[in-house]
């Protein structure tokens, strides 16, 4: 998994590529926490290059969303691949996030 971040005027985009599981979710958690610790609580999670995400990744997203909202921000999801979106649906996570099918709309959310 690779993680890159790009900061815009009103939000930061975190882009992860590859596979998120119990091993790699640690790096993803660190990336979210780093931003949240630095008061960058408006976060777009660009999922376009993700191939796989287990519940370990969902746990990261849930805790990031809680912290972001506590800080007056939000985590929104962009370009969630279809199979990962199905898992989000099955775990009841869909209502907890705004999903965008393209990055521009997600950045424009903030």
């Amino acid at each position, binding site marked *: 998994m690779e993680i890159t971040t790009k900061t815009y005027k009103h939000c930061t985009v975190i882009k992860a590529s590859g*596979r998120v*599981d*119990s*091993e790699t979710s640690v790096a993803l958690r660190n990336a979210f926490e780093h931003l949240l610790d630095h008061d960058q609580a408006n976060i777009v999670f660009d999922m376009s290059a993700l191939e*796989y995400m*287990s*519940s*370990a990744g*969902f*746990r990261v997203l*849930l*805790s990031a*969303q*809680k912290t972001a*909202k506590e800080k007056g921000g939000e985590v929104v999801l962009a370009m969630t691949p279809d*199979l990962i979106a*199905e*898992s989000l649906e*099955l*775990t*009841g996570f869909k*209502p*907890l996030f705004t999903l965008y099918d393209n990055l521009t709309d997600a950045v424009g959310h903030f």
Partner: protein
Amino acid sequence: MPSLTVEARPQNLKKLRAFVEEGARQAGFDRRGVYAVALAVDEAAANIMEHGYRGAGGLITCSWELHPRGLAITLHDTGQACDPNNVPPPDLDSGLFERKAGGLGVHLMRQMMDEIRYRSTAEGNFLTLIKHRPQEH
């Protein structure tokens, strides 16, 4: 019956997924089916690593065989016993701040598979995950 034994460390999850993905392809599953099999096994194996062995290591043996209606995968470990069929369903609808992240793994495992069998014996725990090909449901 192909089988793979790995140390119970998260670094080995991707090997386990690749191993059962091959079985799923041989069983004739499409992209969604292969993904489901990998996800179910990943969740089961991650639980064995984290809860069964409490992160202290041990061995996990995974084997698969083509089943008349699809694929049967068995995970063997010698950690603490836990029948996933007895794990209560997770919280799927409370609000963000009330939402608990627990139980998602077993829930996804159940959703991805058609049948889950569990036996705990003196030789260890045997978890069998069975998935049918869609056309034969």
